[in-house]
């Protein structure tokens, strides 16, 4: 810094203020106009068009996918198709991986541990705790992700996502939010932390905060597998076999759409209470459709998304597996620590149409939503007293195929209501710790970060509570 310059700097700024006054204050418009005129002149000189009146494929597609009548149905149909392919396609590799990791490697590890006389508590912690948790995450999550992410990325590369944003833009404006929020929401469908960073494209602080606070309602990568699994084994199972794939896909689309509706509703609510203000306008560019480069897309989506999410899940699954095993095997007055906590939370859980296990799992899974389902299964088996399955307390066992998972959950007293409420709660609860940290970094405010965590959590509790009460009321009547 140059200290003596300070005085001169003030003089310069003073002169600027005076001259600005003279200039009449509309220099911004004048400047923008002169740049635009120049750009138009230069472009006109450089570009020549040949062959006017050709059939414009882009425009024809756009007229269809952004039409008032067909835009939203086409969007739902496309997403349903993506989920249907994911759900029907993931089953076989899922079973295959489970049969290797859980059916072969797991017993082999125990044999090896016995051979080197590993103490029981250590082999329990390492094999029954940490190994099984990771094996579970891989067999449940890898196949659907390896199918879903490339499909989603192909849609993105083709240029479809901005059309979705275009379709939703008007609704966002009516909700008192910025139209660009449709783009940050789209990013949120991949990862909420990325979605929160993406809100930087929104200029107005008010509208940006709305976008940050509601991004969590975009179902993220970590939560898709939970939704897909529950929809497959509970909702899909209601329908005849040939329809179950479609019904499960529709259930997942339904949850995702509910997330979009909640985004609108919450934005509307926020823009009328704590974040009141004017809606700013902007122009949304529809990029040209580009033929997706399939091989490259599959490669990058596998590297960027699948491996990334899987890695994150594994990093959190390892310690979580250890914690779960310990909490299931350390006993106080004859009951394990896990059972103490679950018993304590169970009444609240049941009132909400969930159960104690699910609430504990959500506490364990604050760092990463990815491990909710493995934790739920393990704790359920423990409390349902299914000893013998998998070989002891705190063991995540072979539940790779849907029917085995279903058997465990039924043993834990699960009903369709539990599954539906878990799907709802998975959509509507606090963001993961990474997202919360990102929100803190972006807003620089503990207050907004707390609101971002507590608002969806409170809404989630309310929603599952009312669903449970109404469900039971109707079930009682019928």
């Amino acid at each position, binding site marked *: *810094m*140059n*200290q003596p*310059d*300070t005085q001169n*700097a*003030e003089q*310069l*700024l003073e*002169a*600027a203020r005076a*001259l*600005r006054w003279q*200039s009449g204050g509309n*220099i*911004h418009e*004048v*400047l*923008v106009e*002169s*740049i*635009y005129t*120049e*750009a138009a002149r*230069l*472009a006109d*000189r*450089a*570009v*020549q*068009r*040949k*062959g006017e009146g*050709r059939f414009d494929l882009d425009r024809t597609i756009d007229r269809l996918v952004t039409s008032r009548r067909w835009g939203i149905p086409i969007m739902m149909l496309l997403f349903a198709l993506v989920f249907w392919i994911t759900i029907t396609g993931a089953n076989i590799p899922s079973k295959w991986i489970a049969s290797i990791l859980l059916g072969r490697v797991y017993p082999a590890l125990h044999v090896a541990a016995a051979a080197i006389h590993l103490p029981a508590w250590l082999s329990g912690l390492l094999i029954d705790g940490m190994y099984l948790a990771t094996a579970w995450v891989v067999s449940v999550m890898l196949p659907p992700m390896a199918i879903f992410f490339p499909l989603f990325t192909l849609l*993105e*590369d083709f*240029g479809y*996502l*901005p059309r979705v*944003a275009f379709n939703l833009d008007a609704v966002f404006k009516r909700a008192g939010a910025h139209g660009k929020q449709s*783009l940050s929401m789209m990013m949120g469908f991949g990862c909420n932390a990325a979605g929160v960073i*993406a809100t*930087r*494209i*929104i*200029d107005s*602080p008010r509208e*940006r905060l709305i976008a940050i606070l509601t991004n969590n309602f975009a179902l993220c990568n970590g939560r898709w597998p939970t939704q897909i699994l529950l929809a497959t084994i509970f909702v899909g199972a209601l329908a005849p076999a040939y329809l179950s794939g479609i019904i499960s896909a529709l259930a997942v689309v339904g949850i995702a759409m509910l997330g979009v509706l909640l985004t609108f509703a919450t934005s509307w609510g926020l823009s009328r209470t704590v974040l009141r203000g004017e809606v700013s306008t902007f122009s949304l*560019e529809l*990029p*040209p459709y*580009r033929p997706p*480069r399939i091989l490259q897309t599959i490669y*990058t989506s596998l*590297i*960027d998304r699948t491996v990334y999410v899987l890695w994150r899940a594994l990093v959190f699954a390892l310690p979580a597996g250890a914690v779960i095993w310990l909490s299931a095997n350390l006993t106080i007055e004859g009951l394990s620590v896990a059972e103490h906590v679950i018993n304590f939370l169970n009444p609240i859980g049941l009132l909400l149409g969930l159960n104690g296990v699910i609430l504990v799992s959500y506490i364990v899974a604050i760092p990463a939503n990815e491990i909710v389902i493995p934790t739920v299964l393990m704790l359920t088996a423990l409390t349902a007293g299914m000893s013998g399955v998998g070989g002891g307390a705190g063991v995540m066992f072979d539940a790779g195929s849907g029917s085995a998972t279903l058997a465990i959950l039924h043993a834990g007293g699960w009903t369709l209501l539990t599954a539906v409420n878990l799907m709802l709660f998975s959509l509507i609860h606090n963001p993961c710790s990474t997202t919360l940290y990102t929100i803190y970094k*972006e*807003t*620089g405010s503990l207050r*907004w970060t707390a609101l971002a965590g507590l608002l969806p959590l409170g809404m989630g509790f309310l929603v599952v509570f009312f669903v449970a009460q109404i469900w039971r009321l109707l079930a009682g009547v019928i």
Partner: protein
Amino acid sequence: MSESPIQFQAGCETCPVHNAANLLKLGVDMSDWDYVVALAGNPNTGKSTVFNALTGLRQHTGNWPGKTVTRAEGGFEYGEHKFKLVDLPGTYSLLSTSMDEEVARDFLLFGQPDVSIVVVDATRLERNLNLALQVMEITERVVICLNLMDEADRHGMQVDDRRLARDLGVPVVPTSARYGRGMEQLVATVADVANGVLRPKPQRVHSLAPELETIVNKLKAQVQRQYPDLPNARWVALRLLDGDERISEAIQAGELGDLSHGLLDENRVMGQPVPEAAR
């Protein structure tokens, strides 16, 4: 410096063909670079694709605007020099105060890149040139990467890159980054500008009303007196007349003075966090 297993004769090192064949993609290894290159452009022009093609990184690219909101950095080596490439957020202009535009503009101004590549969509030239013209006001050392030439072809457009280069006064390289076409030419041009072999002379927009022009010139003279070495005094004057808070702050804090004396601490700019969001 790259060590090739075969010793080439002296002539080879200066031959573009040899250099193009020896483009080393350094990924994120950016220890002691010789030149800093900024990558600017409108959203969805293939900026990230160009970035990946040059650095060998696989930053995710997506077909939608506003994907890159933060700065990504990577490196490549060409000829005898190491280049650090900074991918700026895609913006339509540098005149508003949204955060992505501020990140881009602050880097162009305070980061003082040795060369700035502006990636331009050949199929939407008019709108894209708005940004290019604004970048050219801030820095002279601009190379236009006229990207998406394949799409322009598909839409039956002919874009005359040579006329554009003459009109703008800066080098224009036609490319199709998705297919890797034109990338060698782009790197060679960037290296030439960095080494001072090519000296761009941007045609700047000076078509204001006479009264306004007098005012701008008055202030420009004052800015020049204060900061004799500043390369873009006119632009600073225009920003001040427009009431740009960030520039006023930079003058008060002495940042602009440091810039003019070439004293600005590199780390301060590079390590600068993204501007804090409004509460």
